[in-house]
C-alpha cells in the first residue's frame, strides 16, 4: 500500500514539475513579448529575445539567420554563445546549404540530435569559431506567410535530446522573433521615410526660393500683379517669375517642366537661372525663347522639356510683346469678357534645336487684365475624372474683376470647388497682371 502511495506521490511530483516547467516556458514567452515592445533596435531586440530562447531551450548557443533578398543568401544576423565572439566574418549560407539552409529550402522546422550523423550539417562555422556543435533545433521565421529567416538553438545543456514539445515551443519563439524583426525593420523604414520627407521639405523650400518672394507693384497703381504656385507634391515642375526689366518694362514668365518631383525641380532651377541670365541680354520674347531652347537642347535630357510663356509689358504705354513655347494661350479679360490671346504658335523648348520662334504684340487699355496659367488649372479633375477645362475657365473669368489678386484667388477657389475631394495631380501656377494707365501720363 505504501509502495503504491509512494509511486503516486512520485508521479504527482513529476507531473507538478512538468506543469511548472511548462508554466515557466509560458512565462518566458510573455517576457519575450515585453522585450519586443521595449526596443526597436534590431540587433538589441534579437540579442534579448535569443538570450531568453537559449535559457528556455536550455541551449549552449543560438543564432538567427535572415534572408538577404538582393543576394538571395542566408546571413547570420546574430550568434550567441561561448564562442560567438570568435566568428571573424559574417556567415552566409546558400539555399539548401547547412541545417539553416535546409530549413529555408523546405520551410519546415528540424531537429538534428547528432550533427555528426547528418550530412546536411555545414561544419565551417565550427572550424572558424572552435565551437563544437552536437545537436541543433532550427525553425523557420515566418512573417505573413513569407519566410524571412531561420532561428537555431544549439546543444542542450542537460544532455537530453530535443523533443516535439521543444520544437513546438521554439516555433512559438520563432513567431515572436519574426515579429520583433519586422517591427524593427518597419521602424527603420519609417525613420528613412521621415528623413526623405524632411529632405523633400528642404528641396521644396529651396525651389520656392527660386521664384519671386515679393512681386513688383507699380507706383501710383500703374499696374497690379498677383501670382500663386501650388506644387502637387513637395517639389514640382511649374515655375514663374516677375521682374522689372527696366523702369518702364515688366517681364512675366510662366512655365511647366515635364514631369514632377526632384528631376523636374532641378531642371526648373537651372532653367530659372538661364532665364535670368538671358533676359538681361535680350528682351525680345522670340529671341529669348530661341536662346533658352538652344541651351536646353544642348544640355539634353530624354523626356525633359518645358512649355514656357514670356511677356514683356511697357507699363507706360500698355503695349505688350509676348511669345509662348507650347504653353497654353494667355487669357485676356476686358470689360467683363474673357478670351484667349492669339498664340504665337511655337513648340515647347528643349526638344528640337535651332528653331525660330515667333512673337506677337498687343495693346492693352486701362483696366485690362491678363492671366498666365499652367495646365494644372485646366487639367484639374474631380472624382468623376472630369477636367476643369478651358471652357469652364473662360466662362468663370468672364465677369468684371477688381484686382489681379481677386482673379488668382477666385480661380483657385473655383478649381478646388470643381475638384471636390479629388487629389491635386499637377502643379498649379497662376500669374495675373492688370494695367492701369497712370494719371500723370494720361
Amino acid at each position, binding site marked *: 500500500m505504501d509502495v503504491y502511495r509512494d509511486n503516486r506521490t512520485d508521479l504527482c511530483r513529476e507531473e507538478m514539475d512538468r506543469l511548472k516547467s511548462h508554466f515557466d516556458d509560458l512565462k518566458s514567452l510573455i517576457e519575450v513579448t515585453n522585450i519586443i515592445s521595449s526596443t526597436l533596435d534590431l540587433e538589441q531586440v534579437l540579442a534579448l529575445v535569443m538570450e531568453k530562447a537559449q535559457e528556455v531551450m536550455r541551449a549552449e548557443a543560438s543564432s538567427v539567420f535572415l534572408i538577404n533578398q538582393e543576394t538571395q543568401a542566408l546571413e547570420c544576423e546574430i550568434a550567441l554563445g561561448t564562442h560567438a565572439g570568435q566568428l571573424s566574418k559574417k556567415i552566409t549560407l546558400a539555399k539548401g546549404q547547412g541545417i539553416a539552409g535546409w530549413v529555408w529550402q523546405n520551410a519546415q522546422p528540424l531537429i538534428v540530435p547528432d550533427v555528426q550523423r547528418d550530412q546536411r550539417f555545414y561544419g565551417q562555422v565550427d572550424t572558424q569559431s572552435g565551437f563544437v556543435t552536437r545537436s541543433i533545433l532550427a525553425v523557420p521565421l515566418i512573417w505573413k506567410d513569407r519566410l524571412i529567416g531561420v532561428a537555431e538553438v544549439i546543444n542542450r545543456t542537460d544532455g537530453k535530446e530535443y523533443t516535439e514539445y521543444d520544437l513546438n515551443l521554439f516555433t512559438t519563439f520563432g513567431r515572436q522573433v519574426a515579429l520583433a524583426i519586422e517591427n524593427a525593420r518597419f521602424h527603420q523604414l519609417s525613420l528613412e521615410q521621415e528623413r526623405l520627407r524632411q529632405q523633400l521639405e528642404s528641396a521644396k523650400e529651396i525651389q520656392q526660393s527660386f521664384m519671386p518672394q515679393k512681386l513688383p507693384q507699380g507706383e501710383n497703381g500703374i499696374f497690379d500683379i498677383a501670382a500663386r504656385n501650388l506644387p502637387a507634391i513637395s517639389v514640382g515642375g511649374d515655375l514663374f517669375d516677375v521682374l522689372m526689366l527696366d523702369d518702364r518694362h515688366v517681364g512675366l514668365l510662366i512655365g*511647366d517642366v*515635364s*514631369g514632377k518631383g526632384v528631376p523636374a525641380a532641378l531642371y526648373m532651377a537651372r532653367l530659372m537661372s538661364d532665364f535670368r541670365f538671358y533676359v538681361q541680354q535680350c528682351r525680345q520674347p522670340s529671341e529669348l525663347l530661341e536662346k533658352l531652347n538652344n541651351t536646353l537642347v544642348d544640355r539634353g535630357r*530624354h*523626356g525633359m*522639356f518645358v*512649355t514656357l510663356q514670356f511677356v514683356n509689358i511697357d507699363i507706360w504705354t500698355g503695349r505688350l510683346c509676348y511669345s509662348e*513655347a*507650347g*504653353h*497654353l*494661350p494667355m487669357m485676356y479679360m476686358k470689360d467683363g469678357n474673357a478670351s484667349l490671346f492669339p*498664340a504665337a*504658335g*511655337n*513648340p*515647347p523648348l528643349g*526638344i*528640337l534645336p535651332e528653331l525660330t520662334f515667333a512673337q506677337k504684340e498687343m495693346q492693352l487699355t486701362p483696366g485690362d487684365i491678363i492671366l498666365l496659367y499652367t*495646365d494644372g488649372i485646366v*487639367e484639374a479633375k474631380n472624382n468623376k*475624372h472630369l477636367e476643369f477645362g478651358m471652357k469652364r475657365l473662360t466662362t468663370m473669368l468672364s465677369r468684371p474683376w477688381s484686382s489681379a489678386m481677386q482673379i488668382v484667388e477666385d480661380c483657385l477657389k473655383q478649381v478646388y470647388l470643381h475638384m471636390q475631394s479629388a487629389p491635386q*495631380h*499637377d502643379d498649379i501656377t497662376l500669374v495675373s497682371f492688370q494695367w492701369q494707365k497712370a494719371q500723370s501720363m494720361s
Partner: protein
Amino acid sequence: MSLDISVINDQGSAQLRIVGEVDMYSSTQVRRALLELVKQKQSPVIVDLNEVSYMDSSGVATLIEGLQMCGEYGGTLLIVGLRDNVREVFELTRLDKIFKIYQNIEAAMAR
C-alpha cells in the same frame, strides 16, 4: 484607367496601337512599350492614336520622350489618327510642329 497596347513589328518598323485614355497613370504603360521598340531600334515607330479618347500632358511628354529616343539612332516616330480632342491638345501646345502626324497607317507608311 486601363489601356490596351498592341505592337505589330514589320521589317524594322513598328506600329504601336493604343486603345483607351492616356493619363498620368496609364502613360507609364505607353512609355514601357516605346522603350522596348527603341531598344530594338525600330524605325519608323508609328503610334496609332485612333482609339485614344483622351490624352493629358503626361501622355504628350511620353510621346516626346519616344521621339527624342528614336532621334538618337536616326529613327523616326510618326503619329497616326488623332481624334478631335487629342488633336486639340497637340495644336494648343504646338506639338503639330514637332511630330509628323498622318491620317492613317497607310499614309504614314507611304510617306
